[in-house]
């Protein structure tokens, strides 16, 4: 029995010629951050003080201590399961922790007296899986928290929302639903939704991990712009290119511990720990 060779693949042609391909409005110029919001560097925004966290008997975070200054961009990296996502979720108390304390803008996160919803409304968060509200249009996604949480009038909320939508280059999609947008577009809307609340700090939990490779760039562009506008950012990511470009500091985590907490130049130049060296050599080979 002879095997028939597979037919040669036909050269792929683009479905639509580039000239007819749908385009976004493109990035608009102008700051993403209110000039008033962009804090002058200096002063502590987030202080993570010796926190530990257990799931039952399993310890996910061990004595983590670090801080993020105002205007600083800190990238948290490390292998899967190292606790980096858990750490960032502790910052706005989406995950409770059992020991230690986190202080955001002088407010203790784990404290009965703290009004958590109020604190969270000042801390923007972007999730791996976007988490736009699928039953609401893009405009409603951008305005609902402004109206219900901050009590902004509908017109003001819409103006702020559509303004930010334009800044991330998606004005044409204002009346669509999240399910009609690509992953990259949804994540840009999610960033705009968080920014609409005028946050004092932004947390990113692997914002590009769930994206198709060709959409990573458009999301990172928005984040780079945000960093350059002076936003305080804590970013969990595997995108070392992003870290090199805009990070001030890099935190490397492994098995629930902060192994390395160094200036970007030092981290990429000469990581002190062996584990960080191994990690870097693995992900930078490609």
């Amino acid at each position, binding site marked *: 029995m002879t095997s028939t060779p597979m037919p040669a693949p036909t050269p792929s042609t683009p479905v639509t010629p580039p000239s007819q391909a749908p385009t976004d409005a493109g990035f608009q110029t102008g700051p993403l951050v209110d000039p008033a919001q962009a804090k002058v560097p200096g002063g502590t925004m987030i202080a993570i003080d010796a926190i530990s966290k257990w799931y039952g008997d399993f310890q996910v975070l061990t004595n983590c201590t670090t801080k993020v200054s105002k205007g600083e961009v800190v990238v948290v990296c490390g292998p899967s399961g190292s606790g980096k996502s858990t750490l960032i*979720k502790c910052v706005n108390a989406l995950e409770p922790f059992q020991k230690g304390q986190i202080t955001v803008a002088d407010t203790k996160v784990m404290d009965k007296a703290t009004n958590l919803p109020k604190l*969270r409304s000042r801390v923007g*968060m972007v*999730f791996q899986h976007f*988490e736009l509200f*699928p039953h609401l249009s893009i405009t409603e996604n951008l305005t609902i*928290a402004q109206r*219900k949480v*901050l009590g902004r009038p509908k017109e003001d909320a819409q103006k702020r929302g559509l303004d930010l939508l334009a800044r991330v280059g998606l004005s044409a999609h204002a009346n669509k*639903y999240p399910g009609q947008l690509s992953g990259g577009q949804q994540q840009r809307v999610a960033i705009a939704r968080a920014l609409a609340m005028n946050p004092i700090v932004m947390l990113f939990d692997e914002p590009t991990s769930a994206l198709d490779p060709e959409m990573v760039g458009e999301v990172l562009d928005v984040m780079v712009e945000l960093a350059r506008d002076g936003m305080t950012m804590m970013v969990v990511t595997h995108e070392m290119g992003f870290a090199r470009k805009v990070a001030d500091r890099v935190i490397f985590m492994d098995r629930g511990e902060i192994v390395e907490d160094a200036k970007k130049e030092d981290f990429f130049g000469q990581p002190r720990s062996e584990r960080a060296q191994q990690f870097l050599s693995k992900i930078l080979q490609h």
Partner: protein
Amino acid sequence: MLSNFDFGVVTASLPYLFGQGMVFTVTLTALAAGMGVVLGTLIAMARLSGVPGLKHVAKVYVELMRSLPLVLVIFWFYFLVPYIGAWVTGASNPVQVGAFSSALITFTLFEAAYFSEIMRAGIQSISKGQTAAASALGMTYWQSMANVVLPQAFRNMLPLLLTQTIVLFQDTSLVYVLSLTDFLGAASKVAQRDGRLVEMYLFAAVVYFAVCFSASFLVRRLQSRVAIIR
């Protein structure tokens, strides 16, 4: 073969059957379904709340209602509600609530148990990420429920909620035990009076079938229209 039957009795009694009987059935169904969904949603939220006492009370309530026959519950409530009313208000005599109110309360409480199971599944079908996103934006538990979780849960569960309402529509015929006259009761009365049992019960069956069948059809149509774009 049908020569012995006289369907004239049906046409003669149409105004009574629909003007009184069907109006009663539809009113009771709509009110009990509306209130039952609201109460059922609250019970579902209680069960999922994680608050120890609340959680268990809700669970026991649902299990109890689901393991009792409806007729029994209707009877019990009819005889008990006046005494409960007297106990709550501190009156010395049983409070007269009337058969209709008693039926409405019973159906609401009974159906709430079934609606709560549907809503519990609906709430659980919404990913944790959605509530996390709502919390991260500063929403309180109630804000996140009202704006994010429940609207999606309702849409996901609408077909099941309406199907349960169709069941309720049929169950309302049990009010005959309280001497209330719903559609079936009205047909039954005419049948007994004129000795036209076959004609009237046949007609009643056709009407129930027609209403429920077209309702199910509409539910399926509606399902595709309210579905969330994903």
